[in-house]
């Protein structure tokens, strides 16, 4: 990212001593110069621009989505026939562990982070996030953590304990490969990414809103992201503790889960689910935010009950802390805890219901425009409702003891996560693609994409309800031709339907990928405001300039952009909304008052260097601690290099060097 306002270039002379044609510092310093390029691969590698980082987050998350998808297809292929042998038991266990881990930690969360990164500053009218380098660090940690995690496939097998990694099955005695070590350390690394991302975005939202924007005037997406960041802020340290305990046990012989020493394996379950349940809302709320933007836009009316939606989101985030033990109704907690958590879990259905009601009422009386984004958003309402009500059936604890760990649960949470979270993210893709890339994804391919995915999801996960209620447990590498003892149990049909369905989803995703490439190569430029949108991110160019806004917009209302375009006019038929300005006119007005001084931070080497140190330390923990020492040295170097680095590059970093009496300040510390 370049600095917008640079001191005027002065002749390239340095030094006061003789010899006019001395070596210029930039040339002599060679590689030690700070990166300043605003184009080319370096501009991506060392960028601190939230938009570039958002795009990279998205691209990497999509890559992991495909990886996790292939894992899912292999699982369904294995389960397509009785006593199948596509995968061995060991491979199958690795496959479902990594499918869940990849989808949760390496796809849905970072994809939400991608949207948050890109759109949150735009939606609140900021030029960047509060800590751009930390933002970059978060991305690189996520990428390196994800790669580290997946490198276990090549180094003796991936983790095989399920994503919930219950102890003592996760101890070295029962899982001797390094898979779980990779899992623990990989999640530790991506966990840091989430934590610092959370700090960054919370500060950004709380501190850097455009003038006039009150909290209750923030777009719902921003609100939901804010709630999610608070959840992350408090949930990540808990899983960090759990992961530390596990890795100390596996790598250094600690006794935390050693039953023979008197340990209680439920400790892990509590720690994991205290993190794990908020995690569910971490996954789903960004998607709720996205469709709360998409529905009003395409219904041409504001979100019904904005305050209720916001408060119910916050309520979900809050109550979400008090329900973790509903994952443990069969774990033997005792009746009092079970009863309390059962009722608390029912409570959380209320704010969720509020959201669904409000989305439905947003559609009511609108002027509905069925774009692909809109279809996905409506798909979320429908599928999430199904997932939600099946969720209520397991909030009833006694009923849950019959359903938990069966395919009924698999059906439930896939309706919630695929139907709720993933479909919401796809809605976001179609809605915001023109903003991010200046080109619209093909609506024709998009419709194909949507309908294939919608039917695929129902075909895959619908039958799982039935399988579960008929008593098929989860995580079974095979379902037998005949079950022992009876010989009548027919699991064939619905298992096969589910397998077919999964490939329909796969086809849908393939069409999406094709759509991306088609759009990239063939699509014409998109209009400035293709959807007649409502929020701040559309009051700027598509894609936005590096500094986002030429002038920081002043906010007067919720749906600021809409109110700049439309005004209520009195006509013969009473008051009517009339378009008074086009998007281009609104933008032109902003540009004509462009700010004179805009400072943006310069790119930096340190985020990528720092984040590269962590996998080195992690490999060291697994293989040889000397490697960790080297990693730590790199880490320390990077941390302090970071701290001593000015926010804006030295003049001498530019070619030709600016030099002269720079007035630029260093960062607050060093």
């Amino acid at each position, binding site marked *: 990212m370049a600095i917008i306002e640079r001191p005027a270039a002065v002749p390239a002379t340095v030094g006061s001593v003789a010899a006019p044609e001395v070596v210029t510092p930039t040339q002599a310093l060679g590689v030690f110069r700070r990166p300043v390029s605003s184009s080319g691969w370096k501009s991506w590698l060392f960028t601190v621009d939230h938009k570039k980082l958002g795009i990279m987050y998205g691209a990497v998350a999509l890559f992991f989505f495909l990886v996790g998808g292939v894992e899912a297809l292999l699982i369904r292929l294995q389960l397509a026939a009785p006593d199948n042998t596509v995968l*061995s038991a060991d491979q199958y*266990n690795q496959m479902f562990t990594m499918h869940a881990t990849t989808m949760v930690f390496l796809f849905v969360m970072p994809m939400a982070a991608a949207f948050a990164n890109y759109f949150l500053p735009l939606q609140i009218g900021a030029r960047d996030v509060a800590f751009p380098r930390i933002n970059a660090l978060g991305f690189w940690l996520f990428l390196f953590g994800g790669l580290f995690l997946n490198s276990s496939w090549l180094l003796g097998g991936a983790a095989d*304990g399920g994503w919930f990694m*219950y102890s*003592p*099955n996760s101890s070295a*005695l*029962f899982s*001797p490969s390094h898979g779980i070590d990779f899992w623990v350390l990989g999640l530790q690394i991506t966990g840091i990414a989430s934590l610092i991302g959370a700090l960054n975005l919370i500060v950004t939202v709380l501190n850097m809103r455009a003038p006039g924007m009150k909290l209750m005037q923030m777009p719902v997406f921003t609100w939901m992201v804010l709630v999610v960041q608070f959840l992350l802020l408090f949930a990540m340290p808990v899983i960090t503790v759990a992961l530390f305990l596990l890795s100390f046990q596996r790598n250094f012989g600690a006794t935390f889960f050693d*039953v023979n020493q008197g340990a*209680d*394996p439920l400790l892990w379950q509590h720690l994991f689910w205290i993190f794990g349940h908020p995690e569910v809302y971490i996954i789903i709320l960004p998607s709720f935010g996205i469709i709360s933007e998409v529905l009003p836009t395409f219904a041409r009316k*504001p979100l*019904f009950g904005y305050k*209720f939606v916001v408060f119910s989101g916050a309520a979900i985030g809050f109550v979400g802390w008090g329900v973790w033990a509903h994952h443990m109704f*069969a*774990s*033997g907690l005792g009746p009092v805890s079970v*009863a309390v958590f059962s009722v608390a879990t*029912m409570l959380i259905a*209320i704010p969720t219901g*509020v959201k669904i009601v409000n989305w*439905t*009422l947003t559609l*009511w009386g*609108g*002027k*509905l425009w*069925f774009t692909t984004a809109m279809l996905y958003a*409506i798909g979320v*309402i*429908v599928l999430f409702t*199904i997932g939600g*009500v*099946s969720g*209520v*059936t397991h909030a*009833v604890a*006694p009923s*849950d*003891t*019959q*359903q938990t760990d*069966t395919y009924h649960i698999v059906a439930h949470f896939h309706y919630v996560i695929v139907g709720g979270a993933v479909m919401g993210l796809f809605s976001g893709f179609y809605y915001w693609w023109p903003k991010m890339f200046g080109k619209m994804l093909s609506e024709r391919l998009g419709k194909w994409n949507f309908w294939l995915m919608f039917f695929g999801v129902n075909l895959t996960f619908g039958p799982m309800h*039935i399988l579960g*209620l*008929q*008593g098929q*447990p989860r995580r079974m590498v*095979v379902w037998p031709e005949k*079950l*022992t*003892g*009876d010989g*009548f*149990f*027919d699991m064939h*049909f619905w298992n*096969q339907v589910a397998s077919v369905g999964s490939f329909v989803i796969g086809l849908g995703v393939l069409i999406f990928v094709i759509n991306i490439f088609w759009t990239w190569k063939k699509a014409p430029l998109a209009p400035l405001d293709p959807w007649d949108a409502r929020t701040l991110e559309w009051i700027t160019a598509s894609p936005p300039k590096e500094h986002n806004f030429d002038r920081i917009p002043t906010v007067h209302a919720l*749906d600021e952009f809409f109110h700049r375009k439309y005004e209520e006019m009195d006509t013969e038929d009473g008051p009517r909304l009339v378009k008074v300005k086009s998007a281009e006119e609104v933008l032109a007005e902003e540009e004509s008052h462009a700010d004179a001084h805009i400072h943006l931070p310069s790119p930096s080497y340190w985020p990528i260097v720092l984040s590269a140190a962590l996998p080195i330390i992690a490999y060291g923990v697994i293989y040889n601690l000397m490697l960790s020492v080297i990693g730590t040295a790199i880490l320390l170097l990077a941390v302090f290099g970071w701290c001593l680095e000015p926010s804006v590059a030295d003049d001498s970093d530019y070619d030709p060097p600016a030099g002269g009496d720079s007035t630029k300040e260093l960062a607050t510390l060093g």
Partner: protein
Amino acid sequence: MDRSKETVSTLGRMPSTRRHWSRAALLTSVGLMLAGCANNAPQDIFEPKGENSKKIDTLQRPVFYIAGVVALIVIGVVGYAMWKFKDRGQDIPEQTHGNPKLEIALTILPAIILAGISVPTVITVFQLDKKTDAECIINVTGQQWWWEYDYATGQCGDVKIDKPIVTAGELVIPEKTNVLLRITSRDVIHSYWIPALNGKRDAVPGRLHTLRMQADQPGIYTGQCTEFCGLSHSRMRQAAVALTAGDFQKWVDNQMKDYVAPEAGSLAAEGEAVFTANCSKCHQINDLKNADGSPVLSEPDLYVVPGVAPNLSHLMNRTAFAGWTFDLLTDECRVKLWNAKPADFGAMYLKGITPECFEQVALRDWLRNPPGMKPMFVDPNNLSSTGGKYRGMPNLNLKPDQIDQLIAYLLGRN
């Protein structure tokens, strides 16, 4: 999702030939598909066969109905709105921001429904956790990948048990009796589940959890380990067999009876020697004696991680083996036993595995190469993490004639 009981229960148990019929249904029509789904499913959670599961059923059935209705209403409203408010060139609607009264009403409505559900839920939770009225106590211990049952000494229903009984895979209980299972584990977490009799309860090492079991009538009720427990999680099954008090007494008597040594010189006697030499390291057969008259004591704690292996004293009184995964009964006999009327069931079950009903194939395969049938952690070259112990049964490299002898011997263990 909201599968109603009607389709399930009216069809009843279906003979195995109907399976092919349902396969045809796959290709034909939706109606037939539904019938396919309603095929007999012994682990169906909507077919309670005991007091506890019936309590759960009474609670969950209305919840499922309500859930279904709510989902249908929401989807219906969304569908109607999509049709009704489609963009047909109408004006941009009024920019209303909501209707607080409606909102509050729609918040309170689900709250009332949920409050209505929560009261019976809490009551049922406490009812199902009652521990003071047990008439029989059985310790249930899970390990990779099978279940062990220890009958504690004392009363069990009307029957007195004098010395501890140890068995595996098949839990035998007296009917109409409140049995309290005390569930734990020797290695990783497992979960004990007999859907027809009660919900599941995790077996957590170092902890003891209780689970009530009560069956209304004699019969066999299947279930499966439901907590992921490693390689052969999918091949860790269990069943509960309920018998009348009289039949249960007979079963206990049989468990207590003295060891029946095979006739000297018979194939089975050779099998006894093979067993003592190879199998008795881990598997206990009660009262089996060495040549010098000393008892043969198994020492599984030296060879396998959980420190136990199934007690085989009465193997042929069980209908399946190896984590209750492979049948000992032929298909024909199994169907007969399964379809037996409650009144006849006990007698038929207590006969055990008779030679004519004995399904040898699986047992032979098992003796030839156990890990080939059920994935286990038994590669002798790869035991560094377990200190040289196996998790599961290794391949003992038995010769075909040794297998013949063993089969003959084991057939007498009833």
